[in-house]
């Protein structure tokens, strides 16, 4: 079996948060770097700017509450088993950081490497899965192809009967993958960043980006203008709107993505299971709730709510794959907004505006990248040039055609 910290009473054993998290300063008139968006990526970027590059005269501006967007709404799955070299580079870099993050942040982020199974249900799923496993292995990423019986051994509650609509033919398995506690991660970053001098400013909406002679000089906010040497955009779910303030058009479609939790249940689900064909992904959180998600709502919008039929489909898939879930209950559903690029890979790097940096387009997969992109984006901002891991993820690849197409080939829901 995989490592699974199963508290004797789930829900009782969640570690306490520290007595002090962060200061609540008023904005200063000017900063060396302003990070727009106080989600996971913004906070991680601030942290690595301070820690790795000694840049601490930094403000993170958040229009709502810290880490209240997609960071608070995702299903916390962490893995690096992506198909293409470019993706596996940055996601594996991220996974390695996850492996030392609790210590680094001195925060119990509950990173549990319980393994992720990506199920295959058709012969083409199998081909794509084997292809990805082989690519992962050659890229030094742990991955294996296992058959249906192997799936059953790792996760006994999966229905591997051949008599279902789309039988499980096998799965890819990444043992080092897993889940973490999202709020703990965000707060771990926020606390250390605040501690090192970064100003975390909430209820501060950026309403304009000031550009003089092609160079960014500051931002207009709901709490007044703030000058900046550099501005880094980390506004997942609203990236097009932010970029537009600087006159930059980004090829993003914003969609709602829903998730849900059950009540607290005795441990039944030792790993993480994802399925694209029978569309659902599920883990059991440390507290004991089943946490699950599925596909995006197909329409565009910024309203953080989805359509109910998506939840119904997800439940059909869940009960099909896990018959014993039948009488578990949905306690709460919610939605975030995901910014999706045409090739399902992110945009991280420089822009046509000097000293303005862009990090967006992570679609449904941004959480797992938090440490990785935080460190790479901080590097990019600090040095004014991309880190090798985010170098492929330029905005101009949509002009040159150097796409990193992860949805066509990977056969994996993010």
């Amino acid at each position, binding site marked *: 079996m995989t490592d699974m910290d199963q508290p004797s009473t789930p829900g009782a054993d969640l570690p306490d948060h520290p007595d002090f998290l962060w200061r609540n300063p008023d904005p200063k008139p000017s900063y060396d770097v302003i990070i727009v968006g106080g989600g996971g990526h913004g906070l991680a970027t601030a942290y690595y700017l301070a820690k790795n590059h000694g840049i601490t005269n930094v403000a993170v501006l958040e229009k709502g509450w810290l880490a209240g967007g997609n960071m608070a709404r995702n299903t916390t799955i962490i893995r690096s088993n992506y198909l293409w070299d470019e993706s596996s580079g940055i996601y594996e870099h991220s996974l390695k950081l996850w492996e030392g993050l609790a210590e680094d942040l001195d925060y119990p982020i509950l990173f549990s490497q319980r393994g992720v199974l990506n199920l295959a249900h058709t012969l083409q799923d199998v081909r794509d899965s084997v*292809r990805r496993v082989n690519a992962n292995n*050659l890229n030094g990423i742990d991955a294996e192809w296992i058959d249906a019986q192997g799936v059953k051994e790792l996760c006994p509650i999966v229905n591997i009967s051949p008599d279902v609509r789309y039988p499980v033919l096998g799965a890819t398995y990444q043992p080092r993958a897993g889940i973490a506690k999202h709020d703990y991660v965000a707060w771990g970053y926020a606390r250390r960043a605040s501690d090192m001098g970064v100003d975390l400013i909430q209820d501060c909406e950026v309403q304009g980006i000031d550009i003089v002679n092609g160079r960014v000089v500051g931002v207009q906010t709901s709490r007044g203008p703030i000058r900046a040497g550099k501005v880094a955009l980390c506004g997942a779910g609203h990236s097009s709107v932010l970029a537009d303030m600087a006159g930059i058009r980004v090829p993003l479609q914003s969609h709602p993505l829903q998730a849900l939790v059950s009540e607290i249940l005795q441990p039944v689900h030792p790993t993480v299971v994802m399925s694209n064909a029978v569309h659902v992904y599920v883990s059991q959180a440390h507290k004991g709730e089943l946490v699950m998600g599925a596909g995006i709502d197909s329409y565009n919008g910024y309203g953080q709510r989805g359509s109910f039929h998506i939840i119904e489909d997800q439940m059909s898939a869940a009960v099909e794959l896990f018959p014993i879930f039948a009488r578990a209950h949905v306690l709460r559903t919610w939605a975030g907004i995901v910014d999706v690029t045409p090739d399902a890979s992110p945009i991280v790097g420089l822009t046509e505006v000097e000293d303005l940096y862009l990090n967006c387009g992570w679609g449904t997969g941004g959480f797992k990248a938090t440490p990785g992109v935080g460190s790479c984006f901080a590097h990019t901002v600090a040095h004014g040039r991309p880190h090798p891991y985010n170098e492929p993820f330029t905005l101009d690849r949509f002009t040159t055609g150097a796409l990193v197409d992860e949805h066509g080939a990977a056969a994996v829901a993010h």
Partner: protein
Amino acid sequence: MTNSFRTSTGGRVNRELPLSFQFDGTPYSGYAGDTLASALLANGKHDIASSIKFGRPRGVFAAGPEDPSGVIQIEEPFPEPMLMASTVELYDGLVASGLPGQGWLADRPDPARYDAVHHHCDLLVVGAGPAGLSAALTGARAGARVVLVDSLSEAGGSLLGSTEVIDGRPALEWVESVTAELDEHPDVLHLQRATAFGCYDDGFALALENRTDHLGGAADPDDTRQRVWRIRAQYLVIATGAHERPVVFNDNDRPGIMLAASARTFLHRFGVLAGGRAVLFTTNDSAYAAAFDLSDAGVTIVAVADSRAQVSERLQDGCVRRGIALHTGHVVSGTDGDRRVESVDIAALTGDNEVGQAERVAADLLLVSGGWNPAVHLFSQARGRLRYDDGIGAFVPAEDLEQGRAVGAAAGHFGLADALRDGASAAAAALGPTATAAVTEHQVDDLVEAPSAVLWSVPGSGETGMAFVDLQRDATTQDVLRAVGAGLRSVEHVKRYTTIGTGLDQGKTSGVVTSGIIADALGVGVAELGVTTYRPPYTPVAFAALAGRNRGQLLDPVRLTPTHVWALTRGAEFENVGQWKRAWYFPREGESMDGAVARECRAAREGVAFMDGSTLGKIDVQGPGAGELLDRIYTNMMSTLKVGRARYGVMCGADGMVVDDGTVIRLADEHFLLTTTTGNAASVLETMEEWLQTEWPELRVHLTSVTEHWATFPVVGPKSREVIAALVPDLDVSNDAFGFMTWRDAEIAGVPVRIVRISFSGELAYEVNVSAWHAMAVWRAIAEAGRPHGITPYGTETMHVLRAEKGFPIIGQDTDATMTPQDLGMSWVVSKKKEDFVGKRSFTRLENQREDRKQLVGLLPQDPSVLLPEGGQVIETADLPEAPVRMLGHVTSSYHSATSGCTFALAVVRGGRDRLGETLYVPMNGTPVPVTVSDTVLYDKEGARRDG
């Protein structure tokens, strides 16, 4: 113990119908009409669960779904985790147990049936209390299509737990008359045991109806256990009432501590006394009714502690008349007891917001009321704005919804007269004059209530003991204060820090209190802080209920070809391709898959074979703009195709990557029929429609999916000509008369067919297309005509081998979304003449000009017995270097070639076409296997076999 806390008369339970049940291993009895909570309380059982963190005993805190405390597990008849005892209707044979905040799932599949119903109405009324009934009746009388849903077993809402009088009669008589009248209206759907749990845009609401549990063993096992009602309403009346709010104080979690109105509900609805000696702690007038009614029913009310300095004479008189000691300006500062509350500490509020010396009184029941929170959950889910009302210390609707309104207590209008009037006028406002005329005025003695005090937490709570804000999460005032001290300013952050509101009840009693405590700590207004977001579902809903019938084989529609049964009876194995079941191969007795495929391949190469290709997507394209549309969609020219001819075509996305391929035949000047791959049929049609409707609306073209209308049977092999000739004697099947890539109309077995000379195998082939209705007759005729030649049915696996031997790619297998037609070696399919087509501009992009793009090639294992793994990666070295290893591409298809007696593969390889003859390697189980890069065509390179 047998119902020793049951009153001798009264209540809505059926005393003629006793029910047996077990709780925590002990047998008990109750009555039909009980909930598990009321039955346990009737038996004097208060200590029913334990808390998640501290293991403290917990009891029933409320009579409805807002209860944060009485969490139970159903064990029999079928395990169901985490339900509130107050929401479980009692039935005979129920076996349940108390939970420590965590439930368990059955280890076997749920045998029950679940389903869903769509319903449309003019007026959806949620809640059958006074406001809801009044709205529904007004709507019904106006002739509207009305749906009334209510979560309880019978209508009445708060009236079930009260002694109200309407028009001089007991209110429940009014309820009875209203429901009877609603029953008379054919356009009214009245559902009890149906909880509206979700509210979405455009008047869309969801309700979960419990249909069989309460029947126990009498339920028909085939009946639907739970039903999801998907209701689309023109107008929504939210009459969901209000939840009583507790006040936080030390040791406020012991069994026997209960919301005041809940105790009153247990008395009036169930005939249950929640204790023998009670204290009431209140901040408002409404709770006195509970104390007075319980007193009148024989409970000793030891004391009333009212946090207000003054109370009305009416209430004072009521206390005096019953001998109840009334302590104004007093609060409850703590409790004591072992498994249940045994004593209550009452103390005066002092001027400096502290409490004085407490007086301890013995009591086994403590009634608490801190006022009322309107149940704004559905209103808020529908994106209704809330505002904080200082007077009642609660959030109330600040506006009407676009298509609805909250009424009565749900709108913060707590009086009975308000509720009746509100409900009727909402219906009237929605439905117009006819409804307005139907509004009835009622005589109700509404007492004018004195203003309530707003008190979130008794001063000093948590300083010396534990004062719980969220009983289910074991979260205390100290936890909230710690969160604020940590720098948290948002209610959402405090929720996450403390986990308040994340339990089964989703904070129905703790949410607003938490905001209040934070606001006090920060010295800001509650209005400024707000409250955490209300999200669906209002109450927990079982996964299976939402899955409904869409499980098992109904998870996704199964599509079957016309020959499915025929293939089944011949022992075919099937594969899922999209929603289709396709015959994969036809093993004979004892034959392996490899054996069957080799035999099927030989038949196609040497004799004749046939398959069912009906799953190919088919789109009928008609109109004056048809040719032009196809020119813009396909990379090659289609408008020049002559009637009677067929052409292969490739479609790309805007990024220039191949998304689909197929054939186009021209049926008439303005009429084409195209085929798509099986899996992409829907997406191709969708893409074409999107271009047509959003970008090229000027083109006059109609697209119609005809996939199911036409069956398609390729007849393949050197003997296929003889078979077709036998089937259609008057058709000249010679190559000159009926050449490659042409089609002819003909007749087989008396059925009109269209025969197309196309080949996906490289062999001479005729594709017979026939209306799906008559397909089997034609299929049988082909089988019969082919019998002398040993015609052999084949499946998708053989089809794959045959086409791979010819180097024909399968879109989606040999391509992913990164391959251009040029990468596939199909530059010939990309028109140089056309001004534009989808994907054209991308071919000129830098990345598309690179020499080292991945290209489709063949790979021949140097050991011809080695079958390469599909998905294997292609590398340059014979030894496996340290990761990361440079990958040149991957194996897309790999087979044994029966014809050539070797294995072979197709692969995409970086700069592949410049590497022909090179040795590359494919790691298999960690060992690189040498392969020779070859042309994609393994068999009949000169294409001699196409014409037979």
